[in-house]
């Protein structure tokens, strides 16, 4: 039980990283990257290639993979999101989904079907914490999320770039008026979003194995927690993600893995039925 809760927390942390990625792009541009799960997968794959094929030390490979995904985010926004947003179309939903399909199949082609291990010294021998066997990496994950959260706060609060991003999220027109390059901010938000997903990927890779389809379900569940927490509420997302990870692990542990999807997603629908803008979303009054 305790073990299920601990590893559920670690899983929830991964959801929160990917889910905060949805939040970031939604705030600046009202768009979402439906290839977030694939971005996470790509981060893990990049780290794996750098470690295994290039022999880079793990921390360096992880950092490089995360940076690479930042570039990926910029490209994605430029090529698969912006052209449609400029037209006022919602085709970015389909285009980002399609990019996800392409990525997964490219990796499948290069990598084959079976998952590969991403070597990590912290995921070799389990340690015992209060009677629960757990990998040190699983304990490290919440620490990383905490650091990311603190980092994000500092970035948004005290740097010009962070403030410009927040301004864009708050009011696009006004930001344009005070000379903020809104397009650049949206691009940046996509870069940050993909980087967060990559952080999730390099952290979970050693635990679940790296494969082309590793990101699909995680990306979907991260979307679910982002919605349940409220797309505009980072703290809500964090809480929802941790709760989802723990709950899911418990249900999965006792009732099997298909049951946990059924319970999880039913819960999502029920929450939205009661709170249409998420648990922490304010019910905004329609302007008439």
């Amino acid at each position, binding site marked *: 039980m305790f073990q299920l809760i601990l590893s559920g927390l670690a899983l929830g942390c991964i959801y929160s990283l990917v889910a905060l990625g949805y939040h970031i792009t*939604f705030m600046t541009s009202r768009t*979402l990257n439906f290839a977030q799960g694939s971005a996470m997968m790509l981060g893990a794959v990049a780290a794996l290639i750098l470690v295994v094929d290039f022999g880079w030390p793990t921390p360096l490979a992880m950092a490089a993979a995360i940076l690479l995904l930042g570039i990926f985010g910029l490209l994605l926004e430029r090529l*698969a999101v912006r*052209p*449609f947003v400029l*037209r006022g*179309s*919602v*085709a970015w*939903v*389909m*285009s980002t*989904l*399609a*990019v*996800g*399909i*392409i990525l*997964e*199949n*490219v990796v499948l*082609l290069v990598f084959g079907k079976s998952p590969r291990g991403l070597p990590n010294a912290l995921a070799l021998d389990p340690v015992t914490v209060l009677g629960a066997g757990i990998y040190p990496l699983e304990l490290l994950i919440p620490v990383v999320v905490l650091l990311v959260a603190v980092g994000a706060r500092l970035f948004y609060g005290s740097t010009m770039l962070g403030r410009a991003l927040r301004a864009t999220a708050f009011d696009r027109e006004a930001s344009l008026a005070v000379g903020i390059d809104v397009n650049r901010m949206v691009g940046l938000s996509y870069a940050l979003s993909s980087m967060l997903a990559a952080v999730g990927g390099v952290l979970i890779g050693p635990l679940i194995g790296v494969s082309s389809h590793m990101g*699909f379900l995680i990306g*979907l569940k991260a*979307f*679910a927690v982002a*919605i349940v927490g409220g*797309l505009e509420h980072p703290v809500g997302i964090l809480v929802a993600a941790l709760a989802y990870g723990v709950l899911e692990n418990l249900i999965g542990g006792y009732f*099997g893995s*298909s*049951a946990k*999807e*059924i319970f999880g*997603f*039913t819960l*999502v*629908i*029920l929450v*939205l*039925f009661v709170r*249409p*803008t*998420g648990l922490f979303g304010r019910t905004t*009054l*329609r302007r*008439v």
Partner: protein
Amino acid sequence: MQSFLRSWGWVLAAIAAVAVAWVLPSAIGRYYTQMLALAGIYAIVAQGLNLLAGYTGQASLGHAGFYAIGAYTGALLATKLGLGFWSALPFSILVAAAAGVLIALPSFKLDGPYLAMVTIAFGIIVNSILIEWSELTGGTQGVLNIPRPTFAGVRLTLENQFLLIVAAVAVTTLFLRNLMRSPWGRAFVAVRENPIAAQAVGLSTRGVKTMAFTISAALAGAGGHIFAFFQGFISPEAFEFEASIFFLTTVIFGGAGTLAGALVGAPIMTFLPELLQRFVDFRLIIYGALIVASLYALPLGIVGTVFRRATYLPDTPSQPEGLGAAPVAVNRPAANPASSAAPGAGDTIVALEGVHMSFGGVRALNGISFAVERGSIHALIGPNGAGKTVLLNVLTGYYRPTEGQVRFDGKLITGLPSHRVARLGVARTFQTAQLFGSLTVLQNVLAGFSGQTDGRFIDSAFITPRLRREEAARRAAAIELLDFVGFKGDPGALANSLPFGHQRLVEIARALAMEPALIAMDEPAAGLNPKEVQDLDELITRISARGSAVLLVEHHMDLVMGISNRITVLDHGEKLAEGTPAEIQGNPKVIEAYLGAEDLDEAPAA
């Protein structure tokens, strides 16, 4: 000739398609017949999704769920209970439709990503249940040995199944075409184009969305049912998230909100992977790339691009000659009894009693009470931020007052949703005209007639003579109303192409179509030139003479002082004064708070 084609074109096309399907299999061989049959099944599902995503604007990323429910219901009824293709079909459709109602429940108040999430979750839940509940569904193995469809006791050959599927596509398409030409079609598009305006003409956005979800799910269920019997076996793999994306892509690629879109999209999307068969490994990569490329190149889908129109709502069928030449009363009798009473009878049509409205800590209205007399012109004035629009929103059911009561025709209507208030006979125009942009001027006015969808679903599906007569009467009445408000443009023009002043007039005509006992107008003169204000002045007087009371929020003092029977002045959410124009002009509190000495000089003495 052209009107003949407009009425019968799709019917002829459907007959032609079935005729071609009769002879085609021998020409193209078994393999391609099979592929085309599959494409036909996908087209049925895609048509259903088109109604939901294209016409009604509710994108579903979980349609594979409904498709699966239809397939499994049919397959299980056949293998476990021995039902045949035809006897099981109604059940498959009903169960899928019921799931549609269920999903519509949480979806009606959701938008964008939140709606997408519910549909995604639904699809995944269904798929997981198929795997998990293996005693019933056969788990990952699925259901095997589903009997082939029969007709009159004879097992159908592949060629005959193909014929059956093409006929089903034809029926589905004709059904959708009829629906989109009926009042229901206008309701679907109205909800997509402008939910607020839809509520204002008495359409329940919830009801309309539920209807769209239900029909859409039913069609997906029918498609799944046919798929199961056609394949002979089914497994959860065919109903994963990818299948939902496939259906949505088919609709968008073909042309969302066009009748032919799904028909064009489905075969292409079915054959495309086959064409790529020799690049087995690259297949899905190319597939993804093609989706992105087509989104770039064909933003409106194939059909939309060819016809240069994103969504196209066909006009209502013209009245057949010699049929129902006498105009049918549209909704005058008993529809809105409140309006039939003699105007100026001196009694109250709407009354606010101690209405408070606060948002968070901000008090927008503070104990407002006043009454509007039947058939009168009652103006509501006050400085910006006085709470005039909030008051209109409370009155018309868009906001629920924090405290106090609203009465209409003696009945309490406090907290009633806006579409119900509208149906009672309260029409509304907005500060910026709220029209259904991609509907024509005439269709906008037609959308105003109340109760036109009630009990008319079957009539809509078949465009019965009764519906034709009603539509003809509504058309005549709508044209008369456009004339009444002084609209001189083209009634066939799209509403979003109209100049500003014309939009106002169309909105007023649409409001009048509701035969309202009260019409609440929010700054109708804003942005009009002096000539137009003059016309408006006269129009409002004529509206009142017609029997509708007018509640007028307006800053234009010439207009207000000239035509109002009574004036209520609001300031900071409080009622400052009420009286005749002369009394208001002489009221020192009003002069101080709002009019100011200068303004008063300009206003004509009443």
